[in-house]
C-alpha cells in the first residue's frame, strides 16, 4: 500500500518533470528576455507583438534587479537569454564594464529625450524612469493642520520630528536612490551632515520598501505604523488609486517632487552579446521602446515611459507628477563610490 503510494508520487513527479523540463525550446523564432521579478506587461500588448512579428518571447525572471543582472554577467560566456531588461542607472556602469551588451542604435531612440540616454554607445537603451521621492499621508497632515513637506530640508524641522521612514540603502534599491538624492542635493561634502541631523530628528530606517511602506507608513499599514512620510516613488499615489479596496476619487498619498528632492531611476534594455538572434532581439527592443508598450508601462510597472510620444493614462496625470529638477549623480560615480557612501551612511545613521 505505502509502496504503491510512493510509486504514484514518483510517477507524478516524473510526469511533471518531463512536461516542463525544457520550456526554453531552441526554436528559431523564440527570443528569451531575461528580467527582474517586477517586470510586467499586458497580455494584449504582448500578443500583438508576437502575432505581428511571428516572434515568440520567452521570459526568464531572476530575482531583483541586482540579482538578475549579476546572473546575466555570470553567464556571459554561455548566455541564458538574448535580451536583458531592467538595468538601472545605479547598476549601469557595472553592466557596461562587464561588457555583456552589444550596441544597437534603435530608430526609436529619436523619440526619447536625451537626458535619459546615459550610454553614448547605445549598448543600454532607456525604457522607463521612476522618481524616488518622499510620499506623505494627505489625511494625516490635513488632520494635524501641518503643511506637508516640500523639500528634503523640511524633514529637519522640529515639527517633523519622528515622522519619516526611509529604507536602508545597503539592502534596498529605493533606499539607495534616496541616499543618492541627498548626495546629489547636498553634495558629497554635505550629505552626511544632513543625515546626522535627520537622525537627530528621529528618522526611522527600514530594511526594505515592503516594511517601510506596509509596516511603518501610516497609509500602507492603516494606522498601525506611525510614520506619515515614507520614501517611495512619485508614481505610488496613482497606484493607491488603481489598487484601492473601494474606488477612490482621490489618492490618500501625494509625492514630494519639488526642490530637487527626487532621484531618477532609469531602466534600460540591452541586447546580450553573443546572441544568435540579433534580428529578433532588435525587433523586441524596438517593441519595448515603441509607443504601444510605452503606453502600457505606467499601469503595469508604475513608472513613466521614456518615449515622449507615449500618452500617460489619466490616473497618472491626475495623481502623479514628474520632477522638473531631479538630483543628479552620474552612474560612474555611483559605481565607484557606492560602497564607500553606503558605509559612511551606515556609520552616520545606524551606529
Amino acid at each position: 500500500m505505502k509502496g504503491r503510494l510512493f510509486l504514484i508520487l514518483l510517477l507524478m513527479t516524473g510526469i511533471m518533470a518531463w512536461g516542463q523540463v525544457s520550456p526554453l525550446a531552441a526554436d528559431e523564432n523564440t527570443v528569451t528576455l531575461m528580467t527582474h521579478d517586477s517586470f510586467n506587461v499586458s497580455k494584449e500588448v504582448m500578443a500583438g507583438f508576437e502575432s505581428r512579428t511571428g516572434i515568440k518571447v520567452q521570459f526568464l525572471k531572476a530575482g531583483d534587479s541586482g540579482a538578475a543582472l549579476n546572473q546575466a554577467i555570470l553567464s556571459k560566456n554561455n548566455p541564458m537569454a538574448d535580451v536583458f531588461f531592467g538595468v538601472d542607472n545605479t547598476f549601469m556602469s557595472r553592466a557596461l564594464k562587464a561588457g555583456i551588451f552589444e550596441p544597437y542604435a534603435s530608430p526609436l531612440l529619436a523619440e526619447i529625450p536625451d537626458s535619459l540616454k546615459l550610454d553614448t554607445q547605445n549598448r543600454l537603451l532607456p525604457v522607463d524612469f521612476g522618481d524616488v521621492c518622499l510620499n506623505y499621508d494627505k489625511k494625516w497632515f490635513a488632520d494635524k493642520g501641518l503643511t506637508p513637506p516640500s523639500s528634503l530640508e523640511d524633514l529637519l524641522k522640529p515639527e517633523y520630528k519622528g515622522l519619516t521612514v526611509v529604507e536602508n540603502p545597503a539592502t534596498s534599491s529605493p533606499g539607495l536612490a534616496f541616499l543618492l538624492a541627498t548626495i546629489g542635493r547636498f553634495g558629497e561634502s554635505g550629505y552626511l551632515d544632513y543625515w546626522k541631523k535627520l537622525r537627530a530628528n528621529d528618522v526611522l530606517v527600514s530594511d526594505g520598501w515592503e516594511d517601510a511602506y506596509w509596516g511603518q507608513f501610516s497609509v500602507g499599514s492603516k494606522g498601525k505604523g506611525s510614520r506619515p512620510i515614507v520614501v517611495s516613488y512619485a508614481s505610488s499615489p496613482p497606484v493607491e488609486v488603481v489598487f484601492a479596496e473601494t474606488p477612490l476619487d482621490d489618492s490618500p498619498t501625494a509625492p514630494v517632487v519639488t526642490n530637487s528632492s527626487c532621484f531618477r531611476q532609469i531602466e534600460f534594455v540591452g541586447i546580450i552579446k553573443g546572441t544568435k538572434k540579433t534580428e529578433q532581439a532588435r525587433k523586441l527592443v524596438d517593441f519595448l521602446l515603441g509607443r504601444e508598450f510605452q503606453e502600457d508601462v505606467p499601469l503595469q510597472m508604475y513608472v513613466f515611459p521614456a518615449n515622449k510620444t507615449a500618452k500617460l493614462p489619466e490616473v497618472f496625470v491626475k495623481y502623479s507628477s514628474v520632477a522638473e529638477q531631479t538630483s543628479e549623480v552620474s552612474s560612474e560615480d555611483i559605481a565607484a563610490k557606492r560602497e564607500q557612501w553606503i558605509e559612511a551612511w551606515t556609520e552616520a545613521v545606524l551606529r
Partner: protein
Amino acid sequence: MDRSLDGSSLKVIRLISRKGILLVGIPLLFLAVFYFYPLLRIFVLSFRPEGAWDPASLSKLVGSSYYVRTLWFTTWQAAASTLLTLAAALPGAYVFARYSFPGKKLLQSITAVPFVLPTVVVAAAFQALLGPRGLVNTWLTEWFGLDSPPFNLDRTFWFFLLAHVFYNYTIVVRIVGGFWATLEPALNEAAQMLGASAWQAFRKITLPLLRPAVVASALLIFIFCFSSFGIILILGGPRFATIEVEIYRQAVHIFNLPMAAALSIIQIIFTFALMYVFTWIQRRTSVALNPVSRSVMERRPVSLKDKLLVGGNAVFILLLLGAPMLALVLRSFTTDSGFSTVFYQSLFENRTQSLFFVPPLEAVTNSLLFGLATLVMASILGLLAAAYLAKPSSRLTSWLDPLFMLPLSTSAVTLGFGFIIALDQPPLNLRTSILLVPLAHTLVAFPFVVRSLLPALRSIPRSLKEAAALLGASPWQVWKNVDMPIVGRALLVGAVFALTVSLGEFGATVFVARPQTPTMPLAIYRFLGQPGALNYGQAMAMSSLLMLVTAAGFLFLEKMRIGRGEF
C-alpha cells in the same frame, strides 16, 4: 521474499545493503553535483575572475573588525534563538508525545504553518499584534489609560527572537516530540520511585535520553537562525546584520564576488566546525531504547495537573503561533467598509490584464507539485543517508554527518550564482529548467529529513535487528519489517518538513532564473511589491491560502501514516 519486488530489483537492493557505501553514494552524488560542484565553480570564478588572484578585494576582510563583529552577532543570536525555542517548545513536545486530547491534530498542524510563511508577512503579523500601534499595545493603553504604548519591541533583539521562536517551534515539537513518544514512561517513574523529584527525573533521565533528538532540533534551529535574513532585518532593524546579509550585499549590490565568496567560505567552515561538534555529541548520546507502541503511551489528561499542562501549552501555542496567524487571516477579510471577501475575489481577477497574472489555483498547484517533488526526492535521499549514518560509526561517518547539513547553512545567493555557471552544459543544462526549483528545495529539505530520522534509527536496539536476521530475514526485510515500522513516524516528520520547506521556500528560488511557474510565496511577494490597499489585502489573502494549503497538506500526510503507524 517480498512479492512486490521482482528478482532483479531485489538483487539490487541486496547489493546496496551489503555495500553500505552504495547506500550513501546516491545522496553524496546528489550533493556533489548540485552542491559542491556549483560552489566550487563560483569560488574559483570569484577568486580568479580573469585567471588571476586579486587580493585587494579582500583587504577589508582582515583590515576591519566589522566582519568579526558580524560573525559574532550571527553566532550568538542564533544560539540565543535556539535556546529560547527549546525552552518554549519542550513542554509542547511533551504534551504532544504523552497526551491525547480533542483538537490535538489541529493544534499540531497549527505549529507547522509558521514555517512556510514569508518573512515580510510574518513581520507584518507581529507588527500588527505587538508593534507600537499593534493590538496588544492599543488594548493596554486603552484599558489602563496610558499615554504611550507600554512596551515597544519593535527594532529590538527580542522582537526577532520571538519571531524565530514562532518559526522554529514546530521543529522541536516534531523532532523531540516524535522521539519522546517512543520513550518508556516507566523510566521516568522509576527515577521518581528512587527518590527523584519530577524535575530531577527530567534532568537526569528524560533529558539525557532525549538528547539526540534535542541536539538534532537544536542543530536545525541554529543553522536556520544562523542564516536568518529577512526576519532580523525587518524586525530587528538595520542595525543588526548577519553574515548572510553581508554576503547578499557584497554579491548583489556591490558585486564584490571575492568578498562574497570569502564570507561564504567562512560561513561554511564555521558551520561545518559547529556541526562536527553537534553531530559528534548526537552520536555519542544515542543509546538503544526499548521501542514502545505509541498508542499505549498517549493518555487523556485526567488530573488537574495534566489538564493544566495540556491546557497551558494549548493556550501558549494559540497565543504565540495562533494569534499572529489569526491576525493575518483577519486582515485578509478586513476592509475599510468592514468584513468582506473582496481580497479573495480579486485574487481571481486580472485587473490590469497582466501577462504575468497568477491565477491562485495555478500558484497552489505549482507550489504543491514542487512540494511533492521535493518531498519525494528529499525523503529518498534522506532515508539513504540516514540509514548509512545510523550504522556503527566509522571515521567516514563523523565527516559525512556534518557534511549533509551544509546545504542548509550555505548562502542562497552563492549557491544560486553557482548554479548559473555550473549547470549550463548538457547533460546538466538545468539553469533555466523548472527542475532546478525542486532540486534547490531538496538541498534545503534533505538535512531536515536526515535529522528527523537519525535519532529514531540510532535508538533501534541491535538485538532486534539481529533477532530478525536470525529468523531468516534478508537485510531488506529486516529494514522493512523492523526499522521501517519504528522509524515510520520519524520519516513522516521528515516528509512534513520537506513539504513545508518547499511550500515556503523563497530564498534559494529567487536566485534561480525561472520561467513562468509562480509559487504562492512568489505571488505574495509580487503583491507586496506595489502600493495600494488592494495589493496588500491580496497578499494577506494569498498568505491565508498558503496557511490553509500547508495545514491541509500536513493533515493529509498525517493521515496516510507511513509504515504501520504503530510507533
